[in-house]
């Protein structure tokens, strides 16, 4: 590739992000067309996709080399020290080019090849079918119909072709409404709730200003005050700044959390979704949701509200449908919000990340209500930025069609489904939580900092044993054991049948049957070969010397005459 001048640099140091004594790993840095790869002395590999890079910074030269700090959209932060400044400069320049593409066609998805044929690829794209989804919801019906008004994207460019509107909404009404709404985003059906007494629905529209109450009889207005994309962007920035601080104190952490406003915003989104779900479920009222353009906050509230109301969206496949419907098809501007291309940085905002975080908070409050686990949310977050699959590329359906994404790229969903085992919640299935309308409690203390998202790659901050993984593996093992039991039972049955057949003829020959040493040997062998090896599951991460939280402590201690010992992030060090 023309942007790559240096492909390999040796003796590069990867600094521990939180170590104040500059603990580091030495290894080799490779630059490929798609990834930056670091292989340390223990052969551990760190892969960084170019598209994941949010910023690259070259710091002032130090005695040990030239520092290069890379911040990623998946919240990984790496700090390299490259021995020679020229190499550092080359890599820096290459990454600047590679991480910010000017056109869609240069994104990874257009070159990513998972070795599938066209038919397989197409089947992948057809996996999630929104027409099916509306059918599942029960539309069209006596009140709602499919409108062809936007078939050619003539009324609204950022809506999908197929829209559901009230039966009485004729084309002139739709056209009139669209002219009255920002970006032509007239009110359309987002979710139709089938309940026993009354059918109610939520729908969405764009605003810019708000409706005059006098002109809308039988309508109640509710303003929920979710902040705009710019506030959200700087809020996340503040949060990340605080959390990246070395030797962070508890007080700085909480005052940073507070001043970033992040959890306040999350709570606001959640409260709005709860309001929506309550109006529909408890009051059997229909709800119209809008913000200014109707593709950010509206998507958050509609999708989260639907998730509270409808257990289907809390399954793995249902969650994919929900994202396809409320986010992708209704024109959440993924490429702009995630900064896929080198564009206006003011359009970047973590709106979808907030949605995922709200879902995570729900999984914390309702551990058995979701078929999927945290890893599923993290993996989706990874891929809205990776540009490895076509789903999140572009800003609306029209644009996606123009890019011919279905022909040129792959869909993420079949890959996630193939890997489903990894994303299953082993506790899923309690009736009280599985089928219910969720009513989360949004008292402030219920919102916790999502460490596994924002410190996903900072392993030293994580618990060293994961209950969740153990239970997940155990659940898998239980399925295998059930199978084994069936197999064994049928084998035993066969043996017994065979014996009763043969017993008459051989009885006389076998009147004395000493216990053979072979029998004992088989028995003990069988016991050993038995499946469960929980030790592996329960292994404590970091128990190896290379990965230990305290590995640097020993070196430090041997220094002469230290005066103070302090601990930072569980890693102690000594300062003289």
């Amino acid at each position, binding site marked *: 590739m023309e942007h790559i001048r240096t492909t390999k640099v040796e003796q590069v140091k990867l600094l521990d992000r939180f170590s104040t004594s500059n603990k580091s790993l030495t290894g080799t840095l490779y630059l490929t067309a798609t990834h930056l790869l670091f292989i340390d002395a223990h052969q551990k590999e760190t892969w960084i996709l170019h598209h994941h890079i949010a910023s690259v910074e070259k710091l002032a030269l130090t005695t040990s080399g030239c520092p290069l700090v890379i911040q990623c959209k998946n919240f990984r932060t790496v700090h390299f020290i490259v021995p020679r400044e020229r190499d550092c400069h080359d890599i820096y320049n290459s990454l600047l080019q590679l991480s910010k593409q000017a056109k869609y066609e240069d994104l990874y998805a257009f070159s990513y090849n998972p070795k599938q044929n066209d038919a397989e690829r197409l089947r992948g794209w057809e996996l999630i079918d929104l027409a099916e989804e509306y059918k599942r919801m029960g539309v069209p019906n006596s009140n709602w119909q499919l409108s062809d008004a936007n078939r050619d994207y003539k009324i609204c460019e950022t809506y999908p072709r197929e829209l559901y509107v009230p039966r009485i909404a004729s084309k002139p009404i739709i056209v009139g409404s669209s002219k009255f709404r920002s970006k032509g985003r007239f009110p359309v059906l987002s979710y139709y709730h089938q309940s026993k007494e009354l059918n109610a629905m939520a729908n969405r529209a764009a605003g810019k200003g708000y409706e005059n109450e006098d002109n809308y009889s039988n309508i109640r207005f509710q303003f929920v005050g979710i902040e705009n994309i710019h506030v959200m962007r700087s809020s996340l920035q503040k949060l990340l700044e605080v959390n990246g601080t070395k030797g*962070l104190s508890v007080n700085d952490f909480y005052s940073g959390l507070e001043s970033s406003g992040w959890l306040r915003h999350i709570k606001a989104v959640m409260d709005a979704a709860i309001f929506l779900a309550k109006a529909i479920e408890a009051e059997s009222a229909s709800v119209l949701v809008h913000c200014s353009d109707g593709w950010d906050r509206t998507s958050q509230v509609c999708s989260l509200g639907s998730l509270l109301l409808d257990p289907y969206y809390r399954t793995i496949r249902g969650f994919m449908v929900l994202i396809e419907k409320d986010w992708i098809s209704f024109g959440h501007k993924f490429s702009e919000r995630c900064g896929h291309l080198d564009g206006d940085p003011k359009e970047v905002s973590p709106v979808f990340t907030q949605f995922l975080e709200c879902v995570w908070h729900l999984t914390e409050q309702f551990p058995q209500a979701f078929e999927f686990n945290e890893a599923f949310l993290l993996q989706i977050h990874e891929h809205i930025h990776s540009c490895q699959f076509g789903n999140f590329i572009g800003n609306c359906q029209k644009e996606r069609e123009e890019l011919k994404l279905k022909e040129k790229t792959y869909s993420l969903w079949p890959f996630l489904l193939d890997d489903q085992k990894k994303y299953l919640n082993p506790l899923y299935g309690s009736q009280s939580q599985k089928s219910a309308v969720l009513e989360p409690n949004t008292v402030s203390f219920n919102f916790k900092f999502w460490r596994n998202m924002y410190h996903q790659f900072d392993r030293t901050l994580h*618990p060293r044993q994961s209950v969740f993984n153990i239970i997940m593996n155990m659940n898998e093992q239980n399925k295998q*054991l059930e199978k084994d039991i069936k197999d064994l039972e049928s084998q035993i049955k066969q043996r017994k049948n065979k014996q009763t057949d043969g017993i008459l003829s051989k009885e006389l020959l076998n009147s004395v049957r000493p216990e053979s040493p072979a029998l004992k040997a088989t028995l003990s062998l069988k016991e050993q070969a038995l499946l469960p090896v929980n030790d592996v599951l329960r292994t404590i991460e970091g128990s190896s010397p290379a990965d230990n939280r305290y590995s640097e402590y020993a070196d430090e201690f041997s220094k002469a005459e230290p005066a103070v010992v302090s601990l930072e992030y569980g890693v102690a060090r000594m300062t003289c």
Partner: protein
Amino acid sequence: MEFAELIKTPRVDNVVLHRPFYPPVEGTLCLTGHHLILSSRQDNTEELWLLHSNIDAIDKRFVGPLGTIIIKCKDFRIIQLDIPGMEECLNIASSIEISEWRLSYVNKEFAVCPSYPPAVIVPKAVDDEALRKVATFRHGGRFPVLSYYHKKNGMVIMRSGQPLTGTNGRRCKEDEKLINATLRAGKRGYIIDTRPLNVAQQARAKGGGFEQEAHYPQWRRIHKSIERYHILQESLIKLVESCNDQTQNMDRWLSKLEASNWLTHIKEILTTACLAAQCLDREGASILVHGTEGTDSTLQVTSLAQIILEPRSRTIRGFEALIEREWLQAGHPFQQRCAQSAYCNSKQKWEAPVFLLFLDCVWQILRQFPCSFEFNENFLIMLFEHAYASQFGTFLGNNESERCKLKLQQKTMSLWSWVNRPSELSKFTNPLFEANNLVIWPSVAPQSLQLWEGIFLRWNRSSKYLDEAYEEMVNIIEYNKELQAKVNLLRRQLAELETEDGVQESP
């Protein structure tokens, strides 16, 4: 006690013996009441017979799972034994090691130190007379005693009250001798003072103080800052008040959580305990821990260091023993500290949630190592409840002396006798427990510490869904055990049938 009773592992196979002028010999190592014997179990090979009384000193080393014991004999000979398996090696070493410690009953009548139990463990080299002198030099008569012996390398944690140096730098030769007696030749120790340096300096004006470098040259002093008394109590009051306010917005909640400083205390205590554990395990150094009285922050540090270092203290019985040893016997004034809790207005100087902070720290470690503890969160909550209000006598009184005077053993029931009943124990058992012999190092980063919801949000929100999820988890584990047992049984049946068939077919 007979020596034979100390032998935990009487026999180890595949031990390699190295000695001067001979090729290495592999064989079986046996410990008897008087001898250490190594036999290759082959003819014409010389065996090693070594009298225990000939052992002058021993050293231990570990490379991976292989342990090495170097035995230095009184006749100047030095031999080396390579022993596979860390546990075996430690057991052998501790059996042949000459104890440097003794049990002292100098405090039999509670006269030397009113807050110590009648029996304490002290260096063998120091007699009771010296202990009496040291007691006059330490706050509350709390002379340095053994708190924990780290089997892996023989290093120890000792604890005491502050030295009473006063403004004119008083010193006490016996005190210096006592704590030096715990050091091996050429080794250095660490004194962990739980107070910041300026507080320790101020303490001199009131007759207290700290160990001067000049008088304790083999010891390096480290100051930490663990808060005490009303500061902790106010922290608790603020925290509980904030948790009880359901209406406050996010900013207010976060700022009140921060202002309570509760998690700052947690971080400080855990950090100091980690440091203590590191001194022992990583530095191979012994430590002495004290603050002012040696009854609060000192005990938090010494007991948490044991949780980190010693697998046994992470079992139910082991933890009970730890509470008994490091809190009750060690003289933490429960009656004073736990007289009132977060709601009472009559604030007394001596009320402080020292024990609750300790339990919270244990909970934080438990959360980070959820499979390494035999007990669950409910066990810790139960202990918190009983420390503050209990129908049992265990937590009554401020120290052993008071409990004796109150005749609690005769007049009340012990909490442990109730807790250890199988029906109760099942509520406190962690279904995920799998004994883990490693040292467990917790993360003390603010992102890794959490508000203990089981205590502080317990009455403020429903835990129905969380409880249901926990039950489901237990079900999965139980079901797993059942299935495994069944598979084992069936495999055995099948193997028997196969062999029968084989026998039937072969003759």
